[in-house]
């Protein structure tokens, strides 16, 4: 822990300090609690979690990774369309998953499978979406989760607005929103942070800095020392965290969450991680990065690290292989359900455009039905 002037001032005045005071993004300081071998680096920072919770977190990460791998496999089998894997980014999302409550909001981008699962989205819904049916975004068991947002960065503004609404309605809710390193270059990113800072909204912005925006490495994305530092410009606390360190992520989220609920406004968390998979199943990373680089980053793998910690502390008792098999069966079952979902109807194209379908749309639908009849009768 390095003290800086601001933190020192706070300490001198007996003011409470937060994790954000102790890790200055301007100095490129990074919050890390365990190393790649699972050794605890900072005992004081270690969060107070029960063994059960840690095991549960690991299992959630394992489930998410299994589901993610299977999704890629289904795509490769030609049974699902283009899919953006989260491989390597599980710790970030599961850490948030431990904290996010049913009433809290999630405004995702499109690489947030794990936290969406934590929020109650089912794999069936996930698969249904990627099989090309928007019903997959009609989350039956997940509350306050927005559908996947494809236009980069735009979800951040939505999160800010939700935050305003929460304050206005005097509710006790927090918004979790995500963006990638590439997304921080979009105007919406700056605008969202700026608004969030002015309005002091209960929003936790997470940048999943997985080093790449498709093929563009983060050093080509910005000249800033890191991404967390950008928060300072907007008067919002920012912190750079080892995204593959489950405990560090948990601590950062916990503090940001507490801050938000206390009315202290937004925070920006830069989670440093690596996109182990491709941008999507249609992308070929070998075009722009080396196997060496991938292998270097593999050493920081979030599941491996947490597993090593659990092995070292002797809390892990289960059979991982067996668990994976169980998960696979469950996930395949969900996939089959998605595959057998009711056929897409013509009506589905129209009925959600407006709350009440205007006459123009009714007519267009009717005209198409005439065409369908004609087609049928020709056979």
């Amino acid at each position, binding site marked *: 822990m390095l003290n800086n002037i601001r933190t020192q001032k706070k300490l001198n005045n007996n003011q409470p300090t937060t994790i954000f005071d102790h890790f200055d993004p301007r100095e490129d300081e990074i919050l890390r609690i365990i190393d790649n071998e699972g050794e605890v680096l900072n005992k004081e920072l270690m969060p107070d979690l029960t063994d059960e919770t840690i095991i549960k977190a690991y299992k959630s990460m394992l489930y998410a990774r299994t589901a993610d791998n*299977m999704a890629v*496999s*289904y*795509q*490769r*089998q*030609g*049974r699902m*369309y*283009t899919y953006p894997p989260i491989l390597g980014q599980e710790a970030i999302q599961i850490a948030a998953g431990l904290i996010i409550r049913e009433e809290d909001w999630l405004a995702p981008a499109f690489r947030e499978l794990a936290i969406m699962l934590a929020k109650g989205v089912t794999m069936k819904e996930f698969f249904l979406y990627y099989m090309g049916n928007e019903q997959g975004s009609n989350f039956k068991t997940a509350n306050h989760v927005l559908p996947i947002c494809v236009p980069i960065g735009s979800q951040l503004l939505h999160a800010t607005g939700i935050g305003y609404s929460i304050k206005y309605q005097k509710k006790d809710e927090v918004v979790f929103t995500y963006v990638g390193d590439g997304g921080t270059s979009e105007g919406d990113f700056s605008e969202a942070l700026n608004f969030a800072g002015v309005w002091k909204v209960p929003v936790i912005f997470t940048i999943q800095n997985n080093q790449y925006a*498709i093929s563009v490495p983060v050093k080509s994305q910005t000249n800033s020392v890191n991404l967390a530092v950008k928060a300072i410009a907007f008067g919002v606390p920012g912190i750079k965290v080892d995204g593959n360190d489950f405990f560090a992520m948990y601590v950062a989220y916990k503090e940001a969450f507490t801050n938000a609920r206390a009315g202290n406004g937004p925070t920006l968390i830069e989670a440093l991680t690596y996109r182990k998979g491709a*941008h*999507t*199943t*249609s*992308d*070929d990373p*070998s075009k722009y990065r080396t196997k060496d680089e991938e292998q270097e980053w593999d050493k920081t793998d979030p599941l491996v690290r947490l597993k090593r910690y659990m092995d070292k502390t002797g809390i892990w008792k289960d059979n991982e292989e067996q668990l994976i098999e169980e998960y*696979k069966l469950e996930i*395949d079952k969900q996939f089959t359900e998605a*595959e057998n979902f009711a056929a897409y109807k013509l009506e589905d194209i129209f009925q959600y455009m407006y709350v009440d379908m205007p006459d123009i749309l009714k007519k267009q639908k009717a005209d198409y039905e005439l065409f369908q009849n004609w087609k049928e009768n020709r056979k």
Partner: protein
Amino acid sequence: MRYIFNFPDIGEGLEEGTILEWYVVKGQVIKAGQPLVNMETDKIVTDIPSPKAGTIVAIYGSVGETIHVGSPLVEIEIEGVFGADAVAEVKETGKADSVEEEAAGVVGTMELAEKNAYLAASDEGSTKSKTEDKPVVKVQATPLARAMAKDLNIDINKVIGSGPSGRVTKEDLENYKPAKQPQGVIHKTETSTQQLSADAVTYEPLSQIRKTISKNMLHSKQSTAHMTLFEEVEISHLITVRDRYKNRFAEKDIKLTYLSFIVKATVLALKKLRKLNSQIDLENDRMIYNNRYNIAIAVDTPEGLVVPVIKDADRLSIQQIAQKITELSDKARDRKLSLDDMKDGTFTLTNYGSIGGIYATPVINYPQCAILGIGRILKKPVVKDNQVVVGSVLPLSLSVDHRIVDGGEASRFINQIMEYLSDPVSMIMD
């Protein structure tokens, strides 16, 4: 049941792949998702996982072999699925066999052109002549007229339009009588549809002018009661007058023609016999007398007959009339006549004498009442003071619409003109 798993499109833009390594063997029990084989494609090397759990019954392709997307990879005995369900299963996974192949694109399934399916090279810039004008004649008509034609069961393309630019109007449709022959003058045009051998005829498309004249002439003849009077007038005096003033006019660059005098004479006569400067409006049971005296002059041009109008000729002197005639003739020949030049004529003169004709039965310029045809001045023996002398005779042919004007009126009119022409001074006396 037996399930054949074909080499699927795996999103990397390929038509085929080379087998690098088999991970399974015949008889092996496998799980869903278990890697079957390692394939090399244009872009990447990847494992292909099995979509089903079961027992491998057959393996297609050996290491090093190249197989096409859609070709069988393995055959699996699937546990526990029989009959209809089994068929359904196969159908479901048929997505893999779709023609769509992915190519690099980050998102979506991209279609790849088949190996030898080429589009012909563009013919851009090549001087390929456009096909000749279609033999199908398409008329202009408003949607309203077209709807009417449909109701009346008329092929609108066969109707001659009388509206602007030959547009087929409601009236045209109302008046359309395909079977009737007006006055037996016009034969049924069946002959025109005879098949003629190719070298017996030459085809030439109709010009706009010809189409218009053709229409107008027919319309005039079918709508009026043409009657023609033929007269001769001796104009030695007029010739003298003209000769006297010819040069003076020439100095001012004006050609003093006989036509100028005839216009003047006509206008004066029209003022006395107004019926000749009118229209009949049978629909409303009335005569429409023109208060203006706009004399149209027929001009022969290479493209055909055009009829520019000298407006308010009654207010012009003979010099001004002469000027106007020259101006309009030049414009006509240069095809520079404006629509305004051509409208509102109330009486027409046609001077075929300059070409050499003597008598004719000119066609009235509908909806005017009459048209005066002017022939060539002939040197003929005439009787003057009981002596036979050489006279200069101007032949006149006056066609009138007998619906408006009777023989007597027509005679009086042409006599008046003849009086003026034989004694030019009388034109300034009246």
